[in-house]
């Protein structure tokens, strides 16, 4: 029987748990900001790593890494969002045939649970096939592909970005009251119209949460980047890479993201220069935070005036 004393103990434990978490996060953030902010400058954000910087630690900026992160996020989510939403709708609104629904459920759980380095390794085996060399670059005339490019990395990123999109959307779709569906059916609307006009709009905030979580997973992944994007940390993108006629070539080439840059420039990596590492970590955090806020705001529907 809970006595008053044990009750108090429980409350104290709950307070403690919350307190420890808040303190831990605050310390980490403060440390990051304190260490990172001094490195941040306009140059740091808008230039590439300086040539010959390998010996002296990483000098120069993080532009290629920042661009790389944004590219894998955009291209990964371009695949993960429609696919994830489709899977979520299938799992909630249709669920037929049952074996396929159960199989899909298990698959999503597996993708969620298996470390990304495993998928990266599998990707290496697939994307190095000669007939997929259009995703990266052919290796001489060995009939193989390098398997390291923004395309290859983004495709694998789509896979790890998928589960949060599915699960969040699924929960949100289940949260749309059945009454709304029945009202729509009762007005002579079919299933597809009901899903398009009632269910998906009603689930928007949850879908946005899933997208944010997916972006977080992609932006934070390092294994896929090392294996499928290459370790070209010090390599700046070619001039005019963003021009439409250069873009495909650029996306078939190697690159880096903020996570690999952080690893590389940290004392654990080759660069041994914690300053830029903290700077890049700080930028990564800000990017994620910004995406979070922007998406959640966008997803909130304003209906009519007021």
């Amino acid at each position: 029987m809970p006595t008053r004393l044990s009750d108090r103990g429980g409350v104290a434990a709950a307070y403690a748990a919350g307190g420890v978490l808040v303190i831990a996060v605050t310390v980490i953030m403060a440390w990051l900001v304190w260490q990172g902010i001094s490195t941040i400058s306009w140059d740091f954000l808008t230039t590439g790593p300086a040539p010959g910087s390998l010996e002296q630690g990483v000098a120069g900026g993080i532009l290629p890494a920042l661009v790389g992160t944004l590219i894998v996020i955009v291209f990964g989510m371009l695949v993960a969002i429609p696919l994830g939403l489709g899977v979520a709708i299938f799992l909630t609104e249709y669920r037929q045939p049952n074996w396929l629904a159960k199989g899909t459920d298990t698959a999503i759980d597996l993708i969620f649970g298996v470390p990304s380095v495993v998928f990266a390794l599998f990707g290496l085996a697939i994307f190095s096939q000669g007939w997929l060399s259009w995703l990266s670059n052919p290796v001489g005339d060995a009939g193989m592909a390098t398997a390291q490019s923004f395309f290859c990395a983004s495709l694998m990123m789509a896979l790890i970005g998928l589960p949060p999109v599915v699960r969040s959307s699924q929960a949100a779709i289940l949260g749309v009251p059945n009454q709304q569906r029945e009202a729509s059916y009762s007005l002579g609307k079919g299933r597809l119209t009901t899903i398009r006009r009632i269910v998906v709009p009603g689930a928007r905030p949850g879908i946005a949460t899933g997208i944010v979580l997916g972006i977080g997973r992609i932006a934070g992944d390092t294994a896929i980047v090392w294996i499928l994007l290459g370790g070209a940390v010090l390599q700046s993108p070619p001039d005019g890479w963003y021009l439409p006629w250069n873009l495909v070539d650029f996306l078939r080439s190697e690159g880096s993201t903020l996570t690999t840059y952080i690893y590389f420039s940290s004392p654990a990596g080759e660069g041994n220069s914690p300053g830029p590492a903290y700077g890049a970590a700080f930028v990564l955090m800000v990017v994620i935070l910004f995406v979070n806020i922007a998406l959640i705001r966008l997803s909130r529907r304003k209906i009519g005036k007021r």
Partner: protein
Amino acid sequence: MDPMETPSNDRADERAVRQEWRHSMDRTADLKAAGDPTDPTVPAVAAEPPAPTTAADVPAAPAAAPEAPAAATSSSGHPAHVADPRDLVLAIRGLRVSFSGNEILHGVDIDAPRGGVVALVGPSGCGKTTLLRSVNRLTELAPTASITGEVQLDGSNIYDRGTDLNLLRRRVGMVFQQPNPFPMTIFDNVAFAMREQAKTRPSRSSLMPAVQDVLQRAGLWDEVKDNLDRNALSLSGGQQQRLCIARTLAANPEVILMDEPCSALDPRSTARIEELIVQLAGSLTIVIVTHNLAQAKRIGDYAAYLLNGDVIEQGLAQQVFEDPTEQSTRDFVSGMFG
């Protein structure tokens, strides 16, 4: 006390005629009438003077009904909105519904004459709602449901193969227990049924006349005409329910099913909805499930009493409530249980 109590002679006439019709036919003749309205064996309605009615059983008559259908009388002496009480818009025959083998309705027969208000009453769990939801085929959304029997809408069985479900549900609209407007603007809620039928999305201005018309019929226009772009969820419960009725009217239905539409509303809003139901009857047929016996008496032209999945008694509302033939009905309407 309030305008709801005002006796209306027109309604009384109409009631008498319907009662007349009920008395003049037995169940088999009734079935024949459903199949073939021109069947000469069906006795014609005798021209008898209206039975006397007391103020107490006169249904709610809208005080200021702009197009009060009951006011118009056709040359034959029938109220205009029930041209022929044998003209059944809806005839349910031997309807059995079970969920996972557990039978809820054990072969139910219900008649709904065109233009009337049919009140389904009975204790909780007697199958009223299931019956109602089987008329626009919402029941089968539950994967465990199994349905046999017929529901004839204008003479054709809606459970026949090849029935266009979306068309059926436009012809038979539904208003739910909880007001459930879509989380959209008031305008979009009403326009929902009108849009998407057209190949190109109709413009707002082209939809406006129809939206206004429907909101006027639902008695909501004056309250929302300046706020059509407000979130429908910002309306009060009673307004939301009238919006739901307007939304249903926008699909241009012949029958509206109402599942305890007032149970979540306060008395004032309830009175407004009841008023609206009486106004709408005539131009369309309303089948309403209600827990509220007084409400069933106020607005029902016809009534059916269900108990444990069987129709115990049905007929003119007045007869079912004032002079039931079955003991069980008598117990229920006198408030012994339920």
